[in-house]
């Protein structure tokens, strides 16, 4: 049971909760901007999950300075890989969000509506 009280677990749970909230927003909100916000929440949650994966018990940031000597780095630092991945993931999330917002702006210009239900021309 103690594992469920550790830092990384709580961080991960938070991330997952954010993701679930994001998914709920995505599938239940009718407003385009809220859907985009749902995606942002989902992304953020996902990023928190990724970061919490990198944590190793009692470790510190993977930067070699006075606190962490080169020789015992392997036993002191957190996993640098997820941290590198999360950087990429954040940037991609940013790009996608910018794209979504640009689309929403364009759609709003065409129809003056932010309701997703009013963009159903193409179907069947």
């Amino acid at each position, binding site marked *: 049971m103690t594992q469920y009280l550790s830092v990384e677990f709580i961080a991960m749970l938070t991330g997952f909760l954010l993701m679930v909230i994001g*998914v709920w927003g*995505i*599938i239940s909100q*009718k407003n*385009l901007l809220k*859907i985009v916000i749902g*995606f942002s929440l*989902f*992304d953020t949650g*996902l990023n928190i*999950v*990724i970061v919490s*994966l990198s944590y190793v018990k009692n470790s510190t940031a993977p930067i070699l300075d006075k606190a962490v000597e080169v020789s015992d780095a392997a036993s002191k630092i957190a996993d640098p*890989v*997820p941290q590198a*991945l999360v950087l*990429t*993931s954040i940037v*991609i999330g940013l*790009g*996608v969000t910018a*794209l*979504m917002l640009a*689309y*929403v702006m*364009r*759609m709003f210009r*065409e129809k003056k509506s932010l309701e*997703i*239900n009013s*963009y*159903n*021309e*193409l*179907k*069947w």
Partner: protein
Amino acid sequence: MVNPIHIVSIALGVAFALGFLGKRDKLSLGLVLSTLAGMVAISAGWFIHFLNSSVEPLQIFTGGFKPPFAINLQMGLAEATFTLLINVAGFLGAIYLTKELLKTGKNMMLIFLVFILGLNVMVMTRDLFNLFVFSEIQSIALAGLIILDPNRKSIPSGFKYVIATGLISSFLLLGTVFAYYFSGTLNIDFISQASLQYVKGGAVAVFMVILAVILELKPFPANGWALDVYESAHPGIGALVSGIAGTTSLFVLYKLIPVAPFISDILITLGLVSFVASNLLGLSQTNPNRLLGYSSIGQLGLLSATIGMQQLLGDKFIFIALTILISHFFAKAGLFWLSGIINRDDIKDWAMLRKKPILLVLFGVFIFSLIGFPPLPSFFGKWSLIMELSAGNQYMLVTSILIGSFIEGIYLFRWLGYAIKLDFSDLPEFKLNISKFLPTLTWGILLIATGVVASAEMEGLSGLSYWPLIFIAFIYLIDELPIYIKNTLSIAGLAFYSWLTLPELYYTDMLRFIFMGIFLIGGILTLIAGYAYKGKRRGFYPVALIMYAGLAYIIQASTTLEFFFGWELMTAGSYFLIIRGKKSINHALSYMLFSIGGAYAILAGFGITFAETQSMLIASLSQLSNMVPLVFILLAIGFMTKTASLGLHIWLPGAHAEAESDVSPMVSAILLKAGVFGLLLLMIAMGNNPQIATIAYYLGWLGALTALVGNMAAAFQEDAKRLLAYSSIAQLGYILFALAMMSHLGWLTAMYYSINHFLYKAILFLTIGAVVLKVGTHSMYKMGGLIKNMPLAFIAVLIGIIALSGVPPLSGFGGKWLFYNAVIDKHWYFQGIIVFFSGIVAFLYLYKLIYSIFLGQLKDNLRHVTDISLWFAIPIYILIIGIMIISAKPEWLLQPLGKMISQWYPNGALAWNGGLATSTYGYWNGNGVMITIGIMFTTILIWLIVLSRKAQKVKQFNIVYAAEAPQRPETTHQSYNMYAGYNKALGWIVAPKITEFWNMMSDWILSLAHFTRLIYNGNGQRYLIYILGYFVIIYFLVF
């Protein structure tokens, strides 16, 4: 060799450098095009490199470290092939979009370039996270390309696309990072080695990864977003999405299968569901781009199912997947490009293609490639797929693949029919832009070229010569020359082929000799009639020759593959021949559908045979011991779609009646014999098997009923050619009946009838066709009294109907005699009585035919018609000579036939004594009958002439002697509603119940399609819900 990493460096370098160029758009485009060309060169170099040597794939270590410490790219034969496909398509796709890219400026150009780059890296990378990054690049770039043509439709659909792929890639990312957590690596090969499917949680992680890739392949029903993109984006973009983005995703799926091997089984199901459902939905589409979207999703489904079948297919997997993939790749992009050229929103407007005939040819090539006709690559792919699946006893899979393909055939051929036949005079002229035409043409050529390459890889196709096809291509190239040149060349071609094959067959194989003779000599004779036409008759000769080539291939085939190759070729050619008729659009479609259905039954039958015997030889049919009845029935159904037996006949009357005058005899007298030949082969191979006897018994009944219904329906026709068409159905019913007897006399009858039917039906169709050309109508009640204007035609029809009806002295009598002997011998009295009765019915329509056209009162408007064209008369009279010979000297034909049939049925043969044939039940001397009847006839004639010396000649309008008033022919012509009384009494037998049945089937399928497509309600959020639901449901199915 240039390091493949430079695909990335030059593409990105140029994409970034476009910023320097400011507004110099032409220069930018030139730079982008040359970059794409450079990328083509790099991947082509590697492709050739790996093709020539079987070296290990090249590993590219980015960052300079080995995996798993850094990201590595791989370049092997597979990667080289796929990057080559991507880059060539990218290059041509950019050329295609030249105008649009120049209009929108450099932003779109660099997005385009980055899009192609992303796909390249997706193929090459061996790192899961890197795959995620570059698939994001690809999908974001695509989100930009969708608005290449920003309009009310494309912007919302672009948004749907962005949110859908956003959700899917989130799954991918989540799966990827957890795969890293559970395996400690991001390298695909190392993850596979870690066997995460056995790790708790790890299995879910890789499941998420693989399912995200599957979702990228737009499986039904989580694919509404993709359909909207296909419909609204510029077709040039649709081509890229469907052609190369789909192809890349498939390769990624293939690459990732080892990571989550447990997905294979469910992948097959998902793929096939998508295949069948998308094709079903395609039925109710009218927008070409959306239709292509459905078709595209269907093909992706089939291909992803194929990837799931990797284990089942063994060595053949690569070949099968590649051929089907390449067909899809070229054909779908080509079709989208065509759609962009003509730019219409309704598939009915595709008749516009005829304004530039070469486009129509390309369209045909693409459609036939999607369905899988020879010699296009997917034909071989589908053949091998069915064979291998059957060999693994996967009959459910075989069935669903064939059903899906069949449904796909329905809408694709309906579409092709629209393009070939619908009126296009109201549609606008359009300019054929070279930048749009060139890529499309290249794709068509490459498609055919890959087909040829694929055929070289096939086992069991060695006996097939490509010279006939090359000859046909040549005839197509000279399509602009006048008829007489093309006709002469075509006849020369057939004659040359006859000279090559017939003498040899005469000594080695009588059966094949006879059918080859019917096909080739018949072909030559019917082609002679073609001289009567004027102008160029564009497109006629290539397709006619394709049909004859197919027929010849069938005869020469020694393996089932060669047979099927010929069969499909013949179907394709005859389809184009039939659709040439004025009102043939629907008839040609139903002909095609029955043919495809039949062909798939044949394919399944051959598949089962291959599964047991592991041999593709046709002879291997006889070694079958399991499932013999099933194979027999499948093959028989396949062949009976061509012989138009009752139940499968509804395509025939329209198709034959509406065809052109010289095409009707081709498709009636000649083509139908292909089915007879098939049935004969089948019965020769399997006839000895006791399990067949019952089926044959029912086939006999089917033949008898076909004969009855066909003849009765013929009697009620007002249309001369329709009458003959129904008559053909009935005659083929006789042949089926005779074949089903499975006895010496039965088969002798069948063979004799086949030859006879060829002769007299060719005579009748040619003559009636020639008459129709002169009088301009098919309706018999609009003719009449033509005997004096057309004596040549009259004599020909008279001889034709005497031969058909079976009265002495002509050949039909011999047929009847043989027939009754066979029936008595077999004790099939009930069926025999039905056939006998239907023979009497035949007199009704034969009388109607000759009476209403040639006798009675001459119509005013036909007073000045002249006799039929000499070019029709020549083949007709040659055929009449043929009838006369076999009537006078039946032994010349029957003795060799008997000898041949004794191979299989030695008992019950006729005993010959000169011209006298003796059976158990009686004897017959054809020559004697002819002489006797001749003497009787001459005597009576002389007597009548002597008697009637004092007779007064009556003019037509001398109403003192004539009871008929020549006005208002509809009501007063005797042949109008002739036999109304019989119709009242017996019409119920020929009520179109079977047609109604098929109509009901098609209505049912259509309403299913209409109903199912309502799930795509256009709401982007709904599509997200489908994606999430798909994800969750598949999860619960797998775990």
